[in-house]
């Protein structure tokens, strides 16, 4: 049990709001990736309301911290977070995946302020994050770079090429967060192409590794707000999460990787989230 962080009450409230809004978007669009939206909600809430130095009024500030959602299918949670943080209007969430909407099923930086790079094909976020981190080192800038990957996504080889590069260069300004919910699209990761021992892999590639309960706001905040100054390696945060967290019938169910909610499911989910 981690000690309580002064911002945790706020971030927990934000996470509830992100979950509610994301499910509303999926419900109205009749499609989306609610399982992964729910598993990453606490990570997004703690980053955006407790750690990232970003300014919705100046989304392209060169000094901003960078955040990349490499598991780009979880736009329900991402757009809800960006709206909650003031990057896009809350009302725009109603247009999610509607014809000509700026809120496409996968994030597009040319449509949506706050998005750094277009993701959707898995395995693209980490190399891009490394590029930003190297640029920051060259410029001696003090911004930090955060990137979230899915655990199934780690089966893409590009992540491991990137892991070598980041480890080799000692990119201490880079934090990779693995949404370790144990499930991919069709099955458990360990029944598909197993990842364990995962922490050992990252250590062997030259990274610092911490493991955390990815739904524990105090613990997430403590990690994300710790100064990067003391480190000489990139940081890999293995966030142990549950797909569908917060909604009993979705929790740990591979079925809810993608899908639509019925009205009664939606109402029940809102009740449970509170």
């Amino acid at each position, binding site marked *: 049990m981690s000690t309580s962080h002064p911002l945790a009450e706020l971030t927990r409230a934000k996470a509830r709001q992100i979950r509610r809004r994301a499910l509303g978007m999926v419900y109205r*669009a009749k*499609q989306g990736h609610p399982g992964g939206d729910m598993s990453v909600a606490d990570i997004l809430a703690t980053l955006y309301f407790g750690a990232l130095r970003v300014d919705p009024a100046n989304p392209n500030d060169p000094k901003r911290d960078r955040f990349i959602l490499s598991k*780009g*299918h979880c736009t329900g949670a991402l757009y809800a977070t960006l709206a909650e943080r003031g990057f896009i209007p809350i009302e725009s969430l109603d247009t999610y*995946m*509607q*014809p*000509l*909407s*700026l*809120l*496409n*099923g*996968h994030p*597009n930086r040319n449509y949506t302020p706050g998005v750094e790079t*277009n*993701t*959707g*094909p*898995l*395995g693209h976020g980490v190399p891009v994050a490394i590029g930003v981190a190297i640029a920051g080192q060259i410029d001696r800038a003090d911004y930090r770079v955060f990137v979230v990957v899915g655990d*199934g*996504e780690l*089966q*893409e*080889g590009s992540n491991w090429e990137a892991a070598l590069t980041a480890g080799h260069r000692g990119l201490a300004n880079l934090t990779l967060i693995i949404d370790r919910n144990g499930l*991919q*699209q*069709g*099955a458990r*990761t360990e029944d*598909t*192409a197993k990842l364990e021992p995962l922490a050992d892999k990252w250590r062997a590639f030259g990274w610092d590794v911490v493991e955390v309960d990815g739904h524990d706001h105090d613990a997430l905040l403590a990690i994300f707000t710790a100064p990067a100054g003391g480190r000489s390696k990139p940081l890999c945060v293995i966030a142990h999460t549950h797909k569908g967290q917060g909604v009993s019938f979705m929790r740990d169910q591979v079925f809810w990787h993608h899908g639509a909610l019925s009205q009664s499911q939606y109402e029940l989910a809102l009740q449970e989230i509170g």
Partner: protein
Amino acid sequence: MSAETAICGRYDCRETFAKTLEALAETDERIVAVVNDSVGSSKLVGFQKRFPDRLINVGIAEQTMVGVGAGLANGGKTPFVSAAACFLTARALEQIKADVAYTKTNVKLCGMSSGVAYGELGPTHHSIEDFAWLRLLPNLTIIAPSDRWETAEAIKAAAATEGPFFLRLSRMPVPDLKRPAGATFRVGAAETLRDGRDAAIIANGVMVSRALEAAEQLAASGLNVRVVNMASIAPLDVEAIGAAAATGAIVTVEEHSVRGGLGGAVAEVIATSCPCRVRILGFPGFLPTGSPEFLLERFGLTATGIAAAVREIVGARKAA
């Protein structure tokens, strides 16, 4: 084929793909399936149940998936490598070039949910560039079937023919096309589904049924239009293109970019050997958000849109 589910008389050909593959695998032990966490989206749950040892799920790793396919072929297997067309072709393009086309391995690439079937998921998930980048590769046969019958025939042909294939399979429901009794499928041969002398529509994949509907609309207003199903983009039926050119006006229709696909292939032939007017219907580039049907409508890929393009090109020819 009645067991498959019809949506308003239209069928998702992935089911035909899976059924045909299972039937072939029953009698041909060499057939294996290779997937990237795409068992469900490729409709291969049944295949996996029946032949658990012959379904290889490499995880979310398309480059490895295609390389493993090439290795399985080397080991005497006939791998059907099945994944969303966008990731299969874009992510693993060099594996397709080097390990499959250049090496000439007996790999059957099955690009599922091609075109804009993933509508709202956006350009990363649309596969409207695949004809263009695969058409450049020697040795690779490329087929975009138009309905259930042709899907089954193309899969059987791929299994029976040594060498690299790319089958472009949609999930967008299509009707069964009417064909003359005894119709046969031949790789590299175009199929004239309707005769006509005023103009020709050359289409493939999910656009063929729309092209036929357009021809019917045009017939009602006195224009007799030939409709050619160019399911094989490679090899290309150059003779059929010549015959279409004899009408004096060609409209090509594909669920693909207007650059480098079916239209590009036809234009290359027309420009170098049988000049005539050509209109290329397809998508202009990265597309906005919207459902598959919304996107097809918006870019004129409907029967009405195709008919309008034919009227325009015929009018332009008469005016000239």
